[in-house]
């Protein structure tokens, strides 16, 4: 199974948000000439986007357009089989455009370089920008006959109360993936992170090349649970922790753990849960998936995130786009999709117990699945004010130099 390498960069690439302040939208000579109010959400400050008369949802009961339906997504982040299936059911061809990262998607969509109907993997911390720039349209939920299949906990997400502009697509946690047959001892308990600081894994450890994820790990290892800190002191503490890690285990910095763990190039690797689920497809022939392991911290310290689907305001085929979202909310289709991309759907029936019981996910990877409860209780990597974001980026740049 091929896999969306760049897709996993999304946190690193999309964390450039700013607080709820007016921001100049142009260059130096037009500073302050125009400003757009961004509504940055957090679980403590949920956001309900204001609807405007010049960006209304489509009417209910319209017939599908002739197509083709144009979709933008990360490479390999939707099962090709589903695109064929949608065509066989509706007679409409689906054209897929891919992008490398979320910022690129935002840039291409906002400049018109991408003329698509549906964005399948909207980064939730960029959603306020899509809404503020009026790039996405409100959803007409009467088209979503499968909407009830969504977990109750995701239907009213903090980043888009009422789900006015987005429908959750996948959900995942951040933890450590490992080959249980290659590690000295399985990672267990609350301090599994320590393994990445263990010199015995020097040269076979890996860290996500995402300044938000990697630095969040440094913060947590330094005993700081505010993974959206704006404090230079906290950042310095995280840097000090990560320097210790670099010295001890010399980790690879990339987002290829879903390949390197099953292949044995890295033994332990900071990883998104969807990657360890996808890793089963990269195991050498004859190697059983029982050798894969995943460790996550307790839910109070666990990072949880999700992607969402949104329809473009400029969509030429908005009814088809609604139909496709509804298609993806069908459990049968979601199962096909999850089998291909690895990442977990947020539909009922995709809970850990069910997936393990039916054999879709091996028991040793059950903790890679996110529960409805996790979705609301986990830590969230949120957009940062520009100054704080720069601080994080500079710190990560400095760490990367190996100086």
């Amino acid at each position, binding site marked *: 199974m091929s896999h969306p390498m760049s897709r996993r960069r999304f946190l690193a690439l999309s964390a450039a948000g700013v607080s709820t302040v007016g921001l100049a939208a142009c*260059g130096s000579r037009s500073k302050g000439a125009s400003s*757009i109010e961004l509504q940055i959400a957090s679980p403590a400050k949920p956001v309900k986007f204001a609807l405007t008369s010049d960006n209304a949802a489509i009417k209910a009961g319209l017939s599908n357009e002739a197509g083709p339906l144009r979709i933008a997504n990360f490479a390999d982040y939707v099962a090709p089989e589903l695109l064929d299936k949608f065509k066989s059911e509706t007679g409409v061809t689906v054209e897929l455009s891919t992008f490398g*990262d979320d910022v690129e998607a935002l840039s291409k969509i906002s400049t018109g370089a991408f003329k698509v109907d549906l964005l399948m993997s909207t980064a939730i911390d960029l959603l306020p920008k899509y809404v503020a*720039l009026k790039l996405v349209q409100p959803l007409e939920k009467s088209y979503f006959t499968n909407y009830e299949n969504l977990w109750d906990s995701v239907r009213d997400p903090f980043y888009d109360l009422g789900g006015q502009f987005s429908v959750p697509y996948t959900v995942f946690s951040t933890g450590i993936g490992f080959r249980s047959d290659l590690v000295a001892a399985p990672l267990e308990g609350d301090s599994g992170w320590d393994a990445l600081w263990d010199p015995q894994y020097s040269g076979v450890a890996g860290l996500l090349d995402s300044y938000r994820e990697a630095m969040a790990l440094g913060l947590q290892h330094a005993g700081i649970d505010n993974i959206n800190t704006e404090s230079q002191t906290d950042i310095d503490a995280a840097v000090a922790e990560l320097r210790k890690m670099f010295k001890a285990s010399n980790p690879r910095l990339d987002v290829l753990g879903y390949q390197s763990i099953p292949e044995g190039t890295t033994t332990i690797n900071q990883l998104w849960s969807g990657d360890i689920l996808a890793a089963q497809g990269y195991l050498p022939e004859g190697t059983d998936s029982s050798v894969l392991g995943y460790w996550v911290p307790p839910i109070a310290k666990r990072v949880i995130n999700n992607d969402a689907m949104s329809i473009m305001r400029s969509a030429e085929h908005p009814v088809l786009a609604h139909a496709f979202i509804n298609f993806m909310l069908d459990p049968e289709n979601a199962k096909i999709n999850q089998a291909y991309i690895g990442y977990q759907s947020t539909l009922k029936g995709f809970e850990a117990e069910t997936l393990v019981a039916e054999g879709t996910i091996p028991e040793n990877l059950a903790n890679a699945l996110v529960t409805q409860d996790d979705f609301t209780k986990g830590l969230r990597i949120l957009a940062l004010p520009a100054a704080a974001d720069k601080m994080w980026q500079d710190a990560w740049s400095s760490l990367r130099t190996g*100086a």
Partner: protein
Amino acid sequence: MAWMALFFIVPFYSVAAVAFGQVDPIRQSAVPEWNPRYWDFTLFTDVMHRVVNGDLGTVFIRTALYVVLAVAGCVVVGYPVAYFVSREAGKWRAALLVLMILPYWVSYLMRMLAWVNLLQPQGWMAQLLSHLPAGNRNWLSGQPITVVFGLVYGYVPFFILPLYATLDRIDGRLLEAARDLGATSRQAFWRVTLPLSRQGLMAACVITALPMVGDYYTNNLLSASPRTEMVGNQIVFFLQQTTQPQVGASLVLMLSAALLVVMAGYLVSVNRAQKLVTR
């Protein structure tokens, strides 16, 4: 002049416009500032400070070291090959020329990915190397030697061709004259072939060194460790993963300035050589 404008001045000015421009805070993309009156040098100064006094200086020095070693590797591997094909290959010359061009048909990325497989702990090359002294190691775990090897392997075809063209143009009668005057074949090489191929050798070094300096994917694929981070990796980081494309553009400008010095040295050398020829 039009050539210079199209392929040097315009791109260079565009990078400067990004480096000294702004960032769209909503779209997070660079907003180039084309009018120098409005250029903002704040970030550039910060980056310069990091390069001169701080952590980025380490990356520049490391990159320069890797490139020097890799170019030296290219000379060691590439010169004998180019020499053999141009002077000794005989009827096999055409076939060998095709073999030299063959690597161009396979993308650099694919060739590096092949080495990732070969150098994995279970890869047969890693297994083979493990029998050598100090060869039993994880070659993909942030080893500078692996990155330098990757650079040599990736760029040596670019080194061989221009050198071959120079060696091939050396008049064989000059070598015959040297031998007639009592020079051994080794002396003929050192006193005739090597001096006459100096310009081609320098051109080959420049042609390979320039892209090596900005290379980032060799390190990404064969190491990905902070211990082997190159300038290109930092540029890509700032351009693709952050909201500070100006920093990436500033690094490009600084790197270009350093390379201009090298290029200037090369051009002066060429100029001197041409003057000697026309005397």
